[in-house]
């Protein structure tokens, strides 16, 4: 594999890119030390930042991208990334299980409803056109891809605008949502019956419930509940089934031809499946790293919350004298684990507020997440960390290259990114928050989001192919 060749080249850092990578590490380290010298409580924010850096390194190493996984599977029948993502998911489920048993899990299951599959579908359709999922676009930005940065901006603002839809959108919501929203007794400042997304949240989502499979198993023995319910039943068994399906439908044909096999025994089939898994080695290694670090992040944030006797970073910010941009509950978005899109929506909302738009009268910003200054928005710094981490590895592997999108790619980035943003808000997360973090913590809504993403991805590939066929019908491909 080309990647292996690059990784084993001598003098990984003894070149211009390597020096830039080292300078980047030094810069983030110095900034971190400066913050700690100012107030040691910034450690809470720095945990997010540095875990982000680690995620960025692993994402770039494994080119971990759900858009690639779905698109390559449907468009060119290549299962490599899909297999890698499945391996990563299985491994993360084990570390997440250990964190849950240790009592430091900060995971909250998502409410179950039609919105999960609808969100996944819109998100999946959009990501085919942008060429990257939410986490993929972050690491590709770190490789110097300005088109991916455009995707991130489009996701950020589409989410903020969607969460802040005005009165004109009220009629698009069923009347029952308004009745139900009013019954929640929310403060008047939130105007919960004004704006589609508020009506959707208070009048529909809050009426749904969710839970983990460990809760359903409910034997009272936490080891059995977590490892049978969350790890085995929710993650590992479905993943094994998916791997077999991927092998049978995509990899097996080429495996038989390459090895000139005529009849296949059980051993041949097992070797075939193992061969498929090992072709995804880099993604699987990245998955192992992501799984371990994602588990460690939950543990570290849980321990810091216990140490500072807080439930949310907002409380710590107030103690440190920062009161602007908090929600009316005096909280900020602070999931405590790997998440991508909500903090990007906060960035969009914060920028809109700079231009005089009051976004705090809606539930998403005003009640739940706040719009803190990006410099003290801990999860947003995790996303910045992902970009930095990916840059560090891309520079050291000589893979960093500034790429400016052409008009076609830029249009796809903006339109696809907007769809991803809308899908992420409907589905309450992206490929990371709504799928990866959910499935690995025993929340079945993650599989439903993935099902939506697959349907959307399939439709996206069909639409993309139609575009490609139309484009190549001219002289360009007419040979």
């Amino acid at each position: 594999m080309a990647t292996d060749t690059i990784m084993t080249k001598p003098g990984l850092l003894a070149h211009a890119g390597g020096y830039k990578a080292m300078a980047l590490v030094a810069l983030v380290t110095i900034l971190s030390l400066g913050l700690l010298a100012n107030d040691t409580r910034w450690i809470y924010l720095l945990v997010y930042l540095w875990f982000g850096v680690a995620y960025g390194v692993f994402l770039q190493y494994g080119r971990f991208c759900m858009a690639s996984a779905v698109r390559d599977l449907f468009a060119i029948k290549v299962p490599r990334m899909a297999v890698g993502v499945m391996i990563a998911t299985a491994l993360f489920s084990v570390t997440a299980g250990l964190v849950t048993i240790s009592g430091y899990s900060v995971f909250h299951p998502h409410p179950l409803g039609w919105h999960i599959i609808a969100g996944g579908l819109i998100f999946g359709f959009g990501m085919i056109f942008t060429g990257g999922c939410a986490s993929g676009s972050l690491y590709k930005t770190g490789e110097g891809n300005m088109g991916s940065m455009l995707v991130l901006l489009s996701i950020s603002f589409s989410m903020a605008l969607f969460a802040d839809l005005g009165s004109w959108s009220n009629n698009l919501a069923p009347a029952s949502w308004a009745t139900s929203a009013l019954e929640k007794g929310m403060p008047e400042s939130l105007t919960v019956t004004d704006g589609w997304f508020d009506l959707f949240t208070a009048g529909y989502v809050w009426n749904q419930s969710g839970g983990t499979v460990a809760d359903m198993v409910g034997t009272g023995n936490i080891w059995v509940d977590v490892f049978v319910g969350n790890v085995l039943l929710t993650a590992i068994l479905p993943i094994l089934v998916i791997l077999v399906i991927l092998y049978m439908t995509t990899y097996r044909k080429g495996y038989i031809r390459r090895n000139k096999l005529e009849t296949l025994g059980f051993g041949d089939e097992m070797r075939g499946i193992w061969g498929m898994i090992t072709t995804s080695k880099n993604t699987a290694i990245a998955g192992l790293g992501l799984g371990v670090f994602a588990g460690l992040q939950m543990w570290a944030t849980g321990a810091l919350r216990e140490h500072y006797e807080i439930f949310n970073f907002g409380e710590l910010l107030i103690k440190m004298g920062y009161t602007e941009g908090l929600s009316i509950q005096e909280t900020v978005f602070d999931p405590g684990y790997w998440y991508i899109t909500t903090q990007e929506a906060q960035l969009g909302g914060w920028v809109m507020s700079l231009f005089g738009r009051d976004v705090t009268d809606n539930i998403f910003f005003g009640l739940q997440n706040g719009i803190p200054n990006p410099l003290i928005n801990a999860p947003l710094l995790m996303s910045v960390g992902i970009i930095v981490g990916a840059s560090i590895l891309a520079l050291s592997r000589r893979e960093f290259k500034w790429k400016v999108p052409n008009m076609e790619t830029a249009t796809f980035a903006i339109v696809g990114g907007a769809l991803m943003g809308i899908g992420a808000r409907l589905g309450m997360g992206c490929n990371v928050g709504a799928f990866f973090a959910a499935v690995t913590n025993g929340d079945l809504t993650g599989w439903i989001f993935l099902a939506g993403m697959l349907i959307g991805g399939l439709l996206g590939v069909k639409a993309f192919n139609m575009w490609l066929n139309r484009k190549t019908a001219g002289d360009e491909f007419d040979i």
Partner: protein
Amino acid sequence: MAIKFDKVSDGHFQLDVCGYVCPHPQMYTKKALQKLESGDELVLVFDNPSSGESIIAMCETEGNDIFERDEGNGSTTWKIRKG
């Protein structure tokens, strides 16, 4: 920065997808290879590393041989023989 697909001589083709990122390079490569006859050679020039890994896997599955690889300055050139 348009995609260039040219016939260099009989059985020899060139596809340049420099400047394009996922999903374009792998999808154009698939489309170009579909136009070739078995035994024809395609010189593929691209600069998006992650597409390269998808193209390797695609060629392995479809039985096409990447017989020469040149990691140049900022772009990659591969020669692929259609199986």
